[in-house]
């Protein structure tokens, strides 16, 4: 069970895509098992205990969301959903149901590997490995212990909400967080109906952190889904 190469379970009905994934994954240090149907995935998941699951939402024998719910109920295995372009509602639903990230088809190897890396890192952080106390990216420095943010060595003053938003995104660097997840994280449950709090706060944060707030380098917008802190 403790093979060095992480095991990826790919739940996908299209053979060409599975073939592409097999090549991409095996040449980058992953092992891969495949399940072309939900049925097969249900059978394999408890036996193989994969480290991560790639789940296509459009499978012929049922709704991928059901499997997502079942897998998440059983274990904290990270799940990345594969979805067609233009189905933003599906992505948000999957993310709010506990999926860790998504990939819009068609996607390239670089994107795939980045998502896998991020999801595995966060899964490791959750299962007890120590979270990084600081984050450094292109001259931006975040000290989570002291709630301190510096850019180019200069301390940047953030409001408590701005800091909370930045910290939520930066702690999950590289992972998309939905509007709902961020609103709950920063403002608590009651603010879920006020998406503009989030937009205003994000605009303020970008003005303080980004060189050009209209072309952000750290705080990326995933239109219709949420926000993502650039991974590296």
């Amino acid at each position, binding site marked *: 069970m403790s093979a060095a190469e992480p095991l990826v379970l790919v739940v996908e009905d299209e053979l060409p895509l599975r073939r592409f994934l097999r090549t991409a994954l095996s040449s980058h240090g992953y092992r891969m098992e495949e399940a072309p149907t939900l049925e097969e995935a249900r059978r394999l998941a408890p036996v193989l205990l994969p480290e991560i699951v790639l789940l296509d939402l459009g499978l012929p024998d049922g709704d991928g969301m059901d499997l997502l719910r079942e897998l998440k109920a059983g274990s904290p295995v990270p799940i990345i959903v594969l979805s067609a372009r233009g189905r933003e509602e599906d992505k948000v639903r999957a993310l709010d149901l506990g999926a860790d990230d998504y990939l819009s088809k068609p996607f390239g190897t670089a994107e795939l590997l980045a998502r896998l890396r991020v999801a595995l890192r966060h899964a490791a952080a959750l299962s007890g490995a120590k979270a990084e106390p600081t984050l450094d990216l292109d001259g931006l420095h975040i000290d989570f212990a002291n709630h301190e943010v510096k850019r180019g060595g200069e301390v940047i003053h953030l409001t408590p909400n701005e800091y909370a938003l930045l910290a939520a995104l930066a702690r999950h660097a590289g992972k998309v967080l939905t509007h709902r997840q961020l609103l709950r994280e920063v403002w608590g449950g009651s603010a879920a109906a006020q998406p503009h709090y989030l937009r205003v706060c994000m605009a303020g944060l970008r003005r303080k952190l980004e060189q050009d707030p209209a072309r952000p380098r750290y705080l990326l*917008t995933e*239109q219709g889904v949420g926000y993502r802190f650039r991974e590296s």
Partner: protein
Amino acid sequence: MRIGGALGLVAAATLIGHFAYRHLDLADVAMIYLLAIAVAAARMGRRIALMTALLCVGSLDFFFIPPRFTFAVNDVRHIGTFGVMLGVGWLVATLTERIRSQAQAAQAREQHAQALNRLASVLAEDGNVQHVKARVESYLERELHCAVRLLLADGEGHLESHADLAEAERAVAQWTFDHGRPSGPGTPSLPGTSWIFEPMGRWGVLGLHHPDMGPNRQSLLPAFAAQIGLTLERIHLEAERTQAHLRAEEEQLRNTLLSCVSHDLRTPLSGITGAATALLEAEGLDRAEERLLLGSIHQEAGRLQRLVNNLLDLTRVESGRLQVQKEWVLLEEVVGSALARLDDVLGARPLELRLADGWVQLDPVLFEQVLVNLVENALKYSAEGSPIRLEGRLEEGQVVLELSDLGPGFPKGEEARVFEKLYRGANSKGTPGAGLGLAICKGIVEAHGGCIEARNLNPGGQIRITLPLEGEPPQEDA
């Protein structure tokens, strides 16, 4: 009343005769009676005229013809006088009656014609079946002073129901429609009911509730019904013609789209197939050659993907199924996310951004696509390295976005056509594209209730989008 008038006339004639008798001849007295008869005949109808004539004859005989104050007649000549008096009464009454009925008929015809004319002008106004129905009902209600309902038939010959009609009345209406015969008061069928139903051919039934009309007015109903039926027929035919026209246009467009798209699909496909077979079959390719072929596969696949995405977007825009979910978002953010998607194509191209700081109301996912298409377009048609500029202003109740480039601009006089599907400007030869991007932009912008225009700057071209802002933007007190 009329009898009273007749008696009065006879009495007056007798009185005048009595005073005149001393100075006049008996024949003159007869003339006075004749006048009374003529008056009665002209004014009071034939029966009263005849009665007046008889009374006058009696009075003349009794009061004036010797021996006076008896009905005896000495001179047989007087019998002739009586005959003439009766004859004149009859003749005048008959002629008057005829003239009167002719005049009445003319007046009724005039009224019919006027009523039909008014109906015709009501029917001539544009509108669909429901508009015509509402207008006809309200016009006829004013004209006929009773409740009027047009009951239209569906394609299977069932009349629509109406809350004003009881079950039995609906059945009568349906019967009228099925048999094409009028029913209700004043008609041979079911004269005891409270509705008159007049069939309007295959279109339905004209119903009048408790109409207060003489047979004259009622004779108008078939003409009304026929005219309404004709109008419904006309609307139907027009709708069919428009439909047929639309279908033909759609067909034409589909054919153009198909031929154009199949070309645009085939080109990258042949590139991919070629490169892939070269990789599979050719021996001894060096690493650089392999990478070149792989690069072209990747590039052509990207082209295919953009085309397919555009086709899908266009289908969504055109099918009318585009659901615009407007939200208040910050202008900067929606532009920013579009630019992030364009990072690769933008490369090092200078981009001047001038964005107002404020809220706009739009569907961020759809609008991001608009911006992506517009910027891609501007990049495609302007020289490598030449700057493009994006400006966003907030004005009273609207937001204005302008994207300008230093390319050749739009063909003169064809600025509006660049948004047409499959339109490719004269200067687009040699530039890849299917003419879908701007059509998608127009569809999305218009689904937002906004407008999009193209115009030429000197130098360059500009696309301007105006979107309405409704209601209050959120307060920034978070």
